[in-house]
Structure formats: C-alpha cells, structure tokens
C-alpha cells in the first residue's frame, strides 16, 4: 500500500516536472520589438519608456525573480489554490505571459535566483529548488529546506532574501515591534533597555546558501538595529549588501506632546544602508530625521524630538527618503537596455504609506536612485508612477495597485509586481 502511494506520488511529481519543463526552447527572447500597452499599463514613465502588463490577478505578488532565459517566478504572500509560487512564461515573444504554472505550498515574500538555484522564503523558512538549464524546476514537489525556525510573530514577518553569489544567503528578520516599547504601540510606553527583540530579530542574518536545516545557531547576525527590511539587494560593483529600512510608525500617536500630526507625517525618514558585517542602524534607540539630517534619539529612549544621538555605534544611512513610503524592493540595475544613467543605479519600489493620516498618503511608485562610484549621489527621482490609479490616496485601501517587487529581465527590462491586484508590469526603453 505504502509502495503504491509513493509510486503514485512519484508519477505525480514527474508529470508536474514535465509541466514545468516543457516549451523550454521557445522561451528564448524574441528579437522583434515588444510593443507596450497603449496606455503603458496605466503607468507614468519618463520619455522613451513604455510598459505592458505581463500578467494580471496572479495573487498577492511580493518579490519576483527571472531566469537568464526569461522564466518568471513570483512569490505570493497568500496561497492561491494551495500554491505560493507562480511561474510565468512568454512563449510567443509578445512580452505577455501565456503559460502559467504554480507550485510550493507556502506563502511568503522572498524569492531570488543564484546560479542553478531558485530560493524562496516563507515567513519562517527558506527553501531552494534546482533549476534546469532552461530555467524550469527539476523537482517542484520537493525543495531543499535551507533555513528553518526563524521568528514569526506576525508583525514584520516577511523574510526577504538576497545572495552574494559566493555561497551566502542574507535573510531579513524584521522586528516584531514598532519601537521596542514595553507595550507595543501603547501611548507613552517607554522602550525596553536593552531591546530584547534584537537577539532574534531586527536585523539581517547570514546563512550558508547550500546547507540544509540551518537555524539561528548555524547562522550569524550580520547586521542589527534594522527595524524591518523588505527590499534588499547585493551590489556587485561594491560586493556589498544594501538594504532599505521601513522607519518606525506613530510618533504622534505615541508621544503627542512631542510630535504633532504633521511632524508625524514627515518623520522619520525611510533609509537605505550600505551594510558591512557588524553594521548597526540604530533601531529602536534612534531614528533618522529627514529634515534635520541627523540621527535623533527615539522618544521611547529619552528623546525629545530634537536630541541628536552621538553614539558612534550607529551607522548613517547611504541616502534618506521621505517618511512612511514603505520601500518593499531594491534592485541594482546592471542591464544595457536603459539609457546609461541608469546603469548601476538603484530602483526602489515604494509600497505606499499609511502612517501619514490625516495628511494624504504618499509613495505607491518606483523611484530611481543614481549611483556614482558605488555610492548614491544624494539625488533621487520618481521613475514609474500611477500605480495607485488615483491622484490622491487618502486611505491606503484606495490605492488600486501597490509596487512590491522588482526584477531585471535578461534583455534589461524592469519588472514590477503589485501585491494588491496581482499585476506584473514590464517596463522597457524604446527611445533612441
């Protein structure tokens, strides 16, 4: 009986691998020009750029990875028909995916390709699947579990991942707290000292990208003092991990005597950090003030809204952005399709704010951050906008689409996911 079940499972596994393996040759990138949608998929883009919808309504599309032959893998935060990873393929070369498959019985955010492996995370584990040379999965039914037992207390639970191509995987473990108060999000509650959250979360952990079943003891806390990182990417020019931190919420709600509603809407900054082993970005003790351009002592730890932190342990951001816009993806652009100014610069997908009420919400766009010699120039600009579908977002629920993931296709196109309606966008440069 048991034997016949395992035979049956094997047959099932085979048929699924065939499903993913077929049409391998036809995934080659078509040489003919791919035409954007007439309305550029509803996006506002710089001159010369166009966009199309690769797919729609795929589910809650978080991060995205694309093989060198163009097969797209999208991680869903919530299962659709019991599956948490969607595979998309454009077989006829028009840029739109007509082949779709799904696998993986876990929801989550992280997905990345390194060498012959597709890595994907749940909210407490990291798995990997072997890829065929054509970019299909060797066995979608049985991934290797790389990391397990990571803390998931719902808040900031997503485990984003990045690989350095040298055998290491970096995993964000977000803080299960807003600002490490004794009572989370309670008005006037003071911060715990030292903050116990930092022992197992609020940082980036480094693991071996090949070993099975690693947990905290097998990995290393690579960087700390990071409240929650959703967007992160390995910078190949610098050989360095860059991350985008979600800054803290609710300065006004929690300390109304120190911060009015307008100040709350503008502070603290969303921040990018260039990490080294041992980096400390200072959460929960300090936050970065985009107006004062200083690290300010958090009110939970004795700050008054102006007191500058002099603690040398805490690192300055590489660049700061306006408050609360929720950077959910970071991508260094290495392609040749876009004009030269984009090469080696960073794209950041801002998911869009909720913590600016009663002022209008902001974000809901993809920004471009120019880099020179491996560092941000200090400027940034909105690259792709219009995801929200409305001029002003008063309540977060009013945004139609919310950018969440970024990937670069083999031809240098930029792909953007939306975890609200499940749209996958492809942005191309058609100008001369």
């Amino acid at each position, binding site marked *: 009986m048991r034997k016949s079940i395992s035979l049956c499972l094997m047959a099932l596994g085979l048929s699924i691998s065939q499903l993913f393996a077929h049409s391998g040759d036809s995934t080659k990138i078509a040489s003919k020009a791919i035409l954007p949608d007439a309305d550029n998929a509803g996006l506002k883009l710089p001159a010369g750029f166009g966009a199309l919808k690769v797919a729609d309504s795929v589910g809650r599309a978080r991060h995205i990875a694309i093989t060198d032959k163009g097969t797209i893998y999208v991680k869903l935060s919530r299962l659709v028909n019991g599956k948490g990873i969607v595979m998309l393929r454009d077989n006829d070369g028009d840029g739109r995916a007509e082949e779709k498959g799904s696998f993986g019985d876990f929801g989550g955010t992280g997905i990345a390709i390194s060498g012959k492996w597709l890595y994907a995370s749940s909210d407490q584990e990291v798995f990997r699947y072997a890829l065929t040379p054509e970019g299909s999965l060797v066995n979608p039914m049985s991934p290797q579990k790389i990391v397990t037992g990571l803390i998931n207390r*719902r808040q900031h639970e997503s485990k984003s991942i990045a690989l350095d191509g040298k055998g290491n995987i970096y995993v964000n473990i977000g803080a299960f707290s807003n600002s490490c108060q004794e009572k989370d*999000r*309670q*008005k006037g509650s003071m911060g715990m000292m030292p903050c116990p959250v930092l022992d197992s979360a609020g940082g980036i952990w480094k693991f071996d990208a090949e070993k099975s079943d690693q947990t905290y003891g097998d990995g290393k806390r690579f960087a700390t003092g990071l409240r929650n990182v959703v967007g992160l990417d390995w910078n190949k020019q610098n050989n360095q991990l860059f991350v985008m931190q979600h800054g803290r919420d609710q300065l006004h709600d929690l300390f109304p005597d120190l911060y009015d509603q307008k100040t709350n809407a503008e502070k603290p900054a969303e921040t990018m950090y260039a990490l080294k082993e041992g980096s400390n970005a200072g959460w929960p003790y300090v936050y970065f003030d985009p107006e004062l351009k200083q690290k300010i002592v958090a009110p939970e730890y004795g700050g008054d809204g102006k007191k500058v932190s002099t603690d040398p342990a805490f690192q300055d951001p590489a660049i700061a952005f306006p408050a609360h816009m929720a950077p959910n993806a970071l991508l260094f652009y290495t392609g040749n399709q876009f004009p030269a100014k984009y090469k080696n610069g960073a794209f950041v997908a801002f998911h869009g704010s*909720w913590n600016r*009420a009663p002022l209008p919400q902001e974000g809901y766009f993809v920004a471009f951050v120019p880099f020179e010699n491996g560092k941000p120039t200090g400027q940034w600009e909105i690259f792709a906008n219009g995801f929200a579908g409305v001029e002003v977002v008063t*309540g*977060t629920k009013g945004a139609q689409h919310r950018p969440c993931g970024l990937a670069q296709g083999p031809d240098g196109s930029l792909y953007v996911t939306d975890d*609200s309606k499940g749209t996958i966008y492809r942005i191309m440069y058609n100008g001369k």
Partner: protein
Amino acid sequence: MKQTRIFLMMILVCLVAKLSAQSPISKSVMDNGKTIYLSRCLACHQVDGGGVPRLNAPLDGASAVIAADKAKLIRIVLKGYSDRVEIDGEYYSNNMAGHADLKDQQIADVLTYIRNSWSNKASAVTAAEVKAIRAKLK
C-alpha cells in the same frame, strides 16, 4: 369611541418611543466620537475607515464592527488586540494598543461613531454597556 381614540394614541406613543429608542443618535455623540476617532484611531484605521490591507483591520463594512453583539468590540478597545485576526476573509497583523484610559462615555461615543460612519449603520453603544464589560475584565 373615546376609549378607542385613547387606545390608538397610546399605541402611537409607544411606537414613537420605540422608534426613538432605536434610531436617533445625537449629533453630539457623533461629534464626540469623531474627536476620539481622530486622536486615537485615525492613524491605523484611516480617514475612510478602510484600515490598511494586511496590517490594520478595516472598520467600514466589517462584520465585527456592526455586529449586534457589542461586547467583543468593547473588549478590543479596552484591552487592545495582539492576535492575528481574520475579518471577512482577510488577515491583519499589527498590534492594537488598549485604550482603557478613555472614560466609559468616550468609548461608547467612539464605538457609536464607527458603527454609524461610512457605510455602517448599527445601534449605539452606551456607557453602561462599556462599564459592564470593563467590570468583567477587572
């Protein structure tokens, strides 16, 4: 004939009394409720009562907000909420702080406000109802 008229009048009085017990929510209750909402609830639950997808629960149209059983709603405001909560098929993960420092009347007013704002229409919450739940929590 006269008796019939008195009887009819009594029925009318009863009807009016019943209607007034159900419907009218005074402007002052709604105004007080709105003041509390703006200072305590707005940041997470938003201007449109829509909440924030996957983080902060919506109030507009939420079955738990307009439910006939008000006890659960009162308990959440007093004690806060830190479980992953499913509302109408969606999960919300952010912690909500308790607001036990508000007076019974303030909690009653803000709950009456959220039960009768946006598309919501439900009965008022009274200070006595809040007081009864608060006593049980102690």
